[in-house]
């Protein structure tokens, strides 16, 4: 626990790309936790300054370029079908947290998803040099506020975090803890498939032990599938 709370929110900048329901919801919680928060939408920061002043007072509307260069952790909260508008150069080497999900109704058809274990791999293929983690996608934006609890609260909700980068994983785990949730290490980025839309983790709400056992159950069934698919000699 101490290890994942290593960073100090007061000296850590969270940069959010996307000023929608999720982006502004994450911003509010991050501000409560004491982080400095920058937020950008696709256009001129002036276009969203009013949105930010009402929806997440205390956050600073900035350009996407400034958000990416200044942030210690960049949070991706744009509609998934706009992932190609993310700037690979701006995100190279940065710690990045992907909160996005695929919703056919609003995202349209995305055939490239068929080739990715989780939508985060598809995103990662576009920003290959980003140090990518996945989390916060399996909690509703209203619940971010309603379900947050101080550490140790008996009804504290757990959220999973995955990443292939140990440092990014630690930073993201600490961030999720600070927002008011038990952060559970879900292992490699591809394990994010365990908490995408339609999965038990996505549709349910779990405490730490419950979430860990769901992650294990998913890993076991994924391993089983792989075994079943491997050629018989």
């Amino acid at each position, binding site marked *: 626990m101490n290890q994942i709370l290593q960073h100090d929110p007061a000296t850590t900048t969270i940069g959010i790309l996307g*000023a*929608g*329901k999720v982006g*502004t919801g994450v911003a509010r919680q991050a501000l409560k936790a004491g982080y400095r928060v920058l937020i950008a939408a696709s256009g001129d920061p002036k276009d969203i300054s*009013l*949105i930010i*002043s*009402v*929806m997440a007072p205390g956050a600073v509307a900035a350009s996407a370029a400034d958000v990416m260069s200044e942030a210690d952790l960049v949070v991706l909260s744009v509609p998934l079908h706009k992932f190609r508008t993310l700037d690979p150069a701006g995100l190279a080497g940065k710690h990045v947290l992907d909160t996005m999900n695929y919703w*056919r*109704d*609003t995202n*349209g*058809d995305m055939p490239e998803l068929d080739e990715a274990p989780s939508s985060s791999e598809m995103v990662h293929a576009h920003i290959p040099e980003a140090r990518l983690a996945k989390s916060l996608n399996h909690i*509703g934006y*209203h619940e971010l506020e*309603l379900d947050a609890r101080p550490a140790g609260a008996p009804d504290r909700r757990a959220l999973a975090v995955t990443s292939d980068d140990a440092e990014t994983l630690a930073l993201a785990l600490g961030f999720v803890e600070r927002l008011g949730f038990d952060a559970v290490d879900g292992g490699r980025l591809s394990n994010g498939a365990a908490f995408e*839309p*339609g999965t038990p983790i*996505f*549709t*349910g*709400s779990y405490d730490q032990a419950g979430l860990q056992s769901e992650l294990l159950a998913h890993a076991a069934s994924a391993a089983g599938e792989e075994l079943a698919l491997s050629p018989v000699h």
Partner: protein
Amino acid sequence: MELGVYSFGDVHRNPVTGAEVSGQQRMADLLERARLADDVGLDYFGIGEHHRADFAVSSIVPVLAAAAAQTRNIKVGSAVTVLSTEDPVRVYQQFATLDLLSGGRAELTAGRGSFIESYPLFGADLNDYEALYEEKIQLLLALNDAGRREEPITWRGKFRPALDDATIYPRPVDNNLDIWIATGGTPASSVRAARLGTNVIYALLGGAVSNFARHAQLFRAEAEQAGHDANALKVGVSAVGLVAKSGAQETFYPYWRHLMDGLSRERGFSQPNRISYDMQTAPKGAIYAGTPEQVAEKILLTREHMGHDRHILQMDLASVPQKDVLKSIELLGTEVKPLIDAELRNQEKAAA
């Protein structure tokens, strides 16, 4: 403050009794509700469209026209018109006609709809989800604007043929259609409605009554900034609920549960249960089921957060029986409305 009811003409098999209801019977039910809502002094009767088996209404305007013909004072409106898969010119003509039929009581609420069945039906591409809506809402408002100025319109867009110096007939009463934009609470939607200078109605479908307070603030601030008179623009709330002298929460639960079970399976969100239901029927939750006093208090609490001008309830989720819906409409008009009016008068006096 305006109060009203809205429906999609649910024809679900009754999840409690197993009883079935025909589309024909449901249409008669809807008109009976409209007459009662008018009789008890409610302000708004809304009909929304779905294009799926559990609902009798995909075509809003004929139902509203029949309701208008059988009522005297109540406003009749769409809740909502899925504009993305409509031709705004035809929508304008239909609602202008409804407005003439009803003596100026017609309203149009435009939205994107919460289901997507109408997209393939009418040849719309989901990949154009945002662009379709953006273009069509702008055209609809431009048509209303041209109507108000009694001028022809010249317009060019991507999703329908261009209009070249065209005048659209008929014009509504006083040349003006009352248009609202419906939203589920994306900040950009509040901003869009504010910049366009239309009324806005928020679908408060669960959660807490305080959830949308910021959105209403944002709408008013943005409208002000865009140069509109923010006080002249209305804010509404649509929600689910049922009013009864006793047992409203018990009566409503299996129907709410049935509908939410289906939605949660389809959309992959948390399965509803009695605990989540009880949280939302509690005083701060956003299901408006209870006694007249409880529902009045909850609408007033919502008003503290939102400062809204209109509150409308969907009472017939998954085919709540007609007798319960009728009783609920009656109580909304005869008991909830006077309670709210009296409290608001007191607040006005205290503030004066």
